C-alpha cells in the first residue's frame, strides 16, 4: 500500500486560468502528473486544496485528473478519475450518438464541471474537434455570437438555463447547433417546444450521471419519452440496479477511481456498486426512470411523496423556477416547502394550486408556497439548499396553516 504524499509535480488550476488558456488543459492532459481543475469562484483556500490533495496516495499521482463536486449543501468533494478511462468513455459516447456528427462544441458551462469537462473539453481534445469557449450566460452577447457562428455544433446545457435563452435571445434561432445535451439536473421536458424553435436543427438528448460516474451513465433522445424523469438506457458497459428503498446504484468501467472527502481518501473498488444518490427503477424498453434524489422522496401521513413528481405537475402550468426544501410540520410529520421564482401573479398561483389539487391528495401539497425574485444558486448552478431556507426576501403565497 502506498503512503499518502502530494506529488511535487501535481498541478492545480482554477477555472479562470483555463478560460484564458485552453491549451493549458491539453498540456496537462498529455503529461503524466495528475492535475486538478477547480472552480474559480468557490471559496477554497490553497491551504485546504494542498492539504486535501496531500491525501492522494502515490499510485494516483500520475495518469489521473481531479474534479470537484459540491452537493446541495456545498460541501466540497474531490473526485479522482483516470485519464485513460475518461478517454474510453468519450469514444463510447461518440459512438452511442451515431458517431457524433458535430464538428465543434460550444462551451457555456464551467469546464471544471465534470459534465462539461468530459463531454466537451475532453471530447474536443480526444476526438480532435473545435471547442469554442464562452462565459455562458454571464456574457450573453458573447454566447449569442458563438451560437450564431455555430457550424454543426454540439452544446451542453443544464435545464435551468433554458428560460434564459428565451428571456435573453427572444425568438432568435440558432440553426448551426445540431446536438443539444442536457444533464446535471432535471431535464427540461416542458420546454422542448421552445428548444425546437430556438435550435431548429438540433437533436436533443437527456443525459444522466453523477460526478462519481465521471460523469455519464445513461442517455436518451428527447423524442423517446414524454417524461422528464426518463433517463433512457445505460451506455455500453454501464450497469444500473435498484437497491434498498429504490436507491439507484451503478457500476461503470469509466467511473472515478476514488474521492477525497472529509479529510480522507477513499478508493472505489472495481466491483463496487456505487450509490448515485438518486432513487429510480427500470421501466419499459430497457429505459430507467428517476423517482428523485434520496432526500426528495419521503413518507408523509403514510403516503410516499415524490418532489420530482410534484415539480413535473407544477411545471405544466408554471414557467418560472421552482425549488423545494424540507420541513417538519406542527404534527411532527415530514413535509416540504415549495419556492417559486420570480414572484407569481395571482392567476399563476391559482393555476399552480389547482394543478396540485387535480393531481395529488393533500399530504402531497406543500406546507407553504413561498416566492422570491431569484433562487439562490451555488457556483455549479445547483440551487443552494442552505440559502433557500434562510432568505429574508421571501413572500408566503399559500400555507397549509398547520
Amino acid at each position: 500500500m502506498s503512503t499518502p504524499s502530494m506529488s511535487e509535480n501535481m498541478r492545480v488550476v482554477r477555472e479562470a486560468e483555463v478560460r484564458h488558456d485552453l491549451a493549458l488543459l491539453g498540456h496537462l492532459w498529455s503529461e503524466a502528473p495528475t492535475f486538478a481543475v477547480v472552480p474559480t469562484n468557490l471559496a477554497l483556500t490553497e491551504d485546504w486544496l494542498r492539504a486535501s490533495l496531500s491525501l492522494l496516495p502515490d499510485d494516483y499521482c500520475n495518469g489521473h485528473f481531479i474534479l470537484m463536486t459540491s452537493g446541495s449543501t456545498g460541501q466540497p468533494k474531490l473526485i479522482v478519475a483516470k485519464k485513460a478511462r475518461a478517454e474510453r468513455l468519450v469514444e463510447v459516447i461518440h459512438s452511442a450518438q451515431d458517431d457524433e456528427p458535430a464538428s465543434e462544441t460550444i462551451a457555456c458551462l464551467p469546464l471544471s464541471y465534470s459534465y462539461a469537462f468530459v463531454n466537451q473539453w475532453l471530447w474536443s481534445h480526444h476526438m480532435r474537434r473545435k471547442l469554442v469557449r464562452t462565459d455562458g450566460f454571464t456574457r450573453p452577447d458573447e454566447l449569442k455570437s458563438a451560437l450564431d457562428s455555430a457550424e454543426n455544433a454540439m452544446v451542453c446545457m443544464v435545464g435551468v438555463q433554458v428560460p434564459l435563452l428565451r428571456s435573453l435571445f427572444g425568438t432568435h434561432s440558432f440553426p448551426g447547433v445540431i446536438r443539444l445535451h442536457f444533464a446535471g439536473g432535471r431535464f427540461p421536458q416542458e420546454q422542448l417546444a421552445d428548444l425546437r424553435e430556438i435550435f431548429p436543427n438540433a437533436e436533443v438528448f437527456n443525459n444522466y450521471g453523477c460526478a462519481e460516474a465521471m460523469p455519464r451513465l445513461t442517455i436518451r433522445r428527447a423524442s423517446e419519452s414524454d417524461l422528464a424523469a426518463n433517463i433512457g438506457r445505460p451506455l455500453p458497459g454501464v450497469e444500473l440496479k435498484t437497491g434498498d428503498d429504490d436507491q439507484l446504484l451503478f457500476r461503470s468501467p469509466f467511473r472515478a477511481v476514488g474521492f477525497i472527502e472529509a479529510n480522507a481518501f477513499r478508493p472505489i473498488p472495481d466491483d463496487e456498486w456505487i450509490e448515485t444518490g438518486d432513487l429510480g427503477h427500470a421501466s419499459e424498453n430497457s429505459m430507467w426512470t428517476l423517482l428523485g434524489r434520496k432526500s426528495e422522496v419521503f413518507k408523509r401521513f403514510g403516503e410516499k411523496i415524490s418532489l420530482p413528481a410534484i415539480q413535473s405537475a407544477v411545471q405544466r402550468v408554471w414557467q418560472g423556477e421552482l425549488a423545494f426544501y424540507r420541513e417538519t410540520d406542527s404534527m411532527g410529520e415530514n413535509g416540504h416547502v415549495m419556492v417559486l421564482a420570480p414572484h407569481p401573479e395571482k392567476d399563476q398561483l391559482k393555476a399552480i394550486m389547482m394543478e396540485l389539487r387535480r393531481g395529488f391528495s393533500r399530504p402531497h401539497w406543500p406546507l407553504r408556497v413561498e416566492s422570491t425574485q431569484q433562487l439562490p444558486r451555488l457556483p455549479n448552478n445547483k440551487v443552494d439548499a442552505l440559502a433557500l431556507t434562510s432568505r429574508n426576501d421571501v413572500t408566503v403565497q399559500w400555507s397549509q396553516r398547520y
Partner: protein
Amino acid sequence: MENRQKLRDLLMEVLLLTDEEFSFDLKREQVETWDSLAVVAIAAGIDETFGYHFTPDEAVGLTGVRDIINILEREGIRFAEA
C-alpha cells in the same frame, strides 16, 4: 372586510376551490379536498381569522359551511345574509 368574505376567502384557500365551486351551502361530502387534514387547517384558519378555537368535536363534526357559520354566530360573530 366583512366576515362572510373572510370565511369565503379562507375556505377557498384551504380547500383550493374556485369562485364557481364555492357556495355558503356547500356540504363537506361535496368537496373532495375537505379531508381530515383540511379539518385541522380550517380550525387553524378560523382561530387566526375570527379568534375562535373549535373544540375537537366541533371541528370533526362539521358537515358543511353552514355549520361553521352557525358555530361562529353562536359566539357572537355575525354573518349577514350568508
